[in-house]
């Protein structure tokens, strides 16, 4: 069953060295995502969730003072030490969508120009006409009403929701094995965010893409993910299938997050600490879950 694992992270540690001081950011985390699976990594700011995604993209390894140990494998490519190979595969084997699509798109290029760049980085040698046709098809697939006009627009001429659709189309046009989604839609209105999640679901199912979905919002995760890892200050504290985690959150930190999430039904304000020693309790893994090769599930 190891063949269908698209992202494998094992005992990953990350530290940033500044002079003699090293700040430890990840303390040995393990996680995996299989083909076609939607896995969420949930935590608050400073938990290490976004750096994990940046490591999987090969975007941190080369920076000065970055200390990485353990394993990151993206579609069979070892990315822990040799990030050149994974960097070359960016946009082709692994791609990413961001929180705020309008600021993630370069404002001085038209959507069409960025699309060409994305297709080129995917190693597709296409004539200008073929590239344009491909871009038009990709935009139509994410339900953009007038793809031709969209390609000739600058990002600031489109709404946030439209830019989000453009980002999703670009991220998937080269059929990557892994999609990293960092809080997609949280910068957008609730109704647009709901549409974004629905669209992502539809696209991922059609393409069989594996997704690592990074979020601070448990409610969004419940709507989207098959499996959930909860991360607190550089440690995974709970891992289970989405229905297990939400039916029976076991770790004190997960429970606190669950209680703190604002609810649509009247429940009063919870009395919760911002932090507690119990949040550092060891990892809890739900039945049937576990890292490959570690647990006979």
């Amino acid at each position, binding site marked *: 069953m190891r063949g269908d694992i698209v992202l494998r992270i094992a005992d990953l540690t990350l530290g940033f060295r500044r002079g003699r001081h090293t700040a430890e950011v990840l303390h040995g985390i393990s996680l995996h995502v299989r083909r076609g699976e939607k896995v969420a990594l949930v935590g608050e700011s400073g938990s290490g969730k976004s750096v994990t995604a940046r490591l999987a993209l090969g975007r941190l390894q080369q920076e000065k003072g970055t200390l990485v140990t353990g394993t990151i494998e993206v579609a069979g490519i070892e990315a822990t030490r040799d990030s050149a190979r994974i960097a070359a595969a960016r946009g082709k084997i692994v791609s990413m969508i961001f929180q705020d699509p309008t600021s993630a798109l370069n404002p001085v290029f038209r959507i069409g120009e960025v699309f060409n760049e994305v297709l080129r980085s995917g190693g597709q040698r296409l004539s200008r006409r073929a590239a344009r046709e491909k871009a038009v098809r990709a935009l139509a697939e994410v339900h953009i009403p007038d793809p031709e006009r969209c390609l000739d627009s600058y990002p600031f001429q489109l709404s946030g929701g439209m830019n989000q659709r453009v980002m999703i189309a670009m991220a998937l046009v080269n059929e990557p094995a892994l999609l990293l989604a960092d809080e997609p839609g949280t910068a957008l*209105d*609730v109704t647009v965010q709901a549409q974004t999640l629905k669209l992502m679901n539809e696209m991922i199912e059609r393409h069989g893409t594996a997704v690592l979905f990074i979020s*601070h919002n448990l409610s969004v995760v419940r709507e989207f993910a098959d499996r959930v890892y909860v991360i607190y200050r550089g440690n995974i504290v709970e891992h289970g299938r989405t229905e297990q985690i939400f039916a029976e959150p076991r770790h004190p930190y997960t429970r606190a997050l669950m209680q703190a999430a*604002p*609810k*649509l*039904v009247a429940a009063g*304000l*919870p009395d919760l*600490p911002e932090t507690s020693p119990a949040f550092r309790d060891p990892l809890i893994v739900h039945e049937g879950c576990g890292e490959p090769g570690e647990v006979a599930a």
Partner: protein
Amino acid sequence: MSDILLRTLGLGKTFTVGRRTVEALKDVNLEVARGECHAVVGESGSGKSTLANIVLGIHPATAGEVVFDGKPLHYAGDPTLRRRIQLVQQNPLSALNSRRRVGASIRLPLDVHRIGTRAERATRVASLLEEVGLAPEMARRTPASLSGGQRQRVAIARALAANPDLIVLDEPTSALDVLVQARVLALLDRLRRERGLTYIFITHDLAVVRALADRISVFAEGRMVETGPADRIFNAPQAEFTRNLIGAVPVATEEEERLRERVRSMGRSPGFAA
């Protein structure tokens, strides 16, 4: 003394961009009762922030008027009326002057409105810090050395300094982590009870105001599409826009899911009577 602390009458605001005019607010009649938490909910472009800016005297209205405590509130008008309305913004890092120590930021409204002597102001800053759950020693810190939650507490203390009657909270917790958000919401709720404050709570997120709001006004495209008690808005929303808004909120529990499904199905059966 009227029960209504703030009222807008036919309030309108038009912006002119080149040759184009944009109607940001159209004929808004809002009533905020003394001592209530009144949530103003809408998506981007709904006019909720424009409304806040007019109430705060940052922008003049182009139509209608604002009546505060029985007196008309004029743009750049009476400073003593202005003192009684304060603001807490979304991002405390940009709302606080990074060069100014926390104590000086909290003292600023006291200086501006000439409240108390120098010694009295220092004592007042210390007690305000304690009131929002921060140590008085924090007065010497800079905003950069504080956590997001601590910064928002400082911004709240600054809003309280001039002893306002009304605080406009503009997405006060949306930049915060969930656990921090829960604590700040609890603080705001406690302060309102203890000080008898009135809040206008501006947000795009209905779930955030569920536990706090007494009344909710929903805005869309510059108009107030629905207003009413919070329980009624959540359980029997009348406007289609409100139903769509509730229907789009991501939920963490089955109980919420049931409510959301019920609201979604209301939209599908027009014959539904609340």
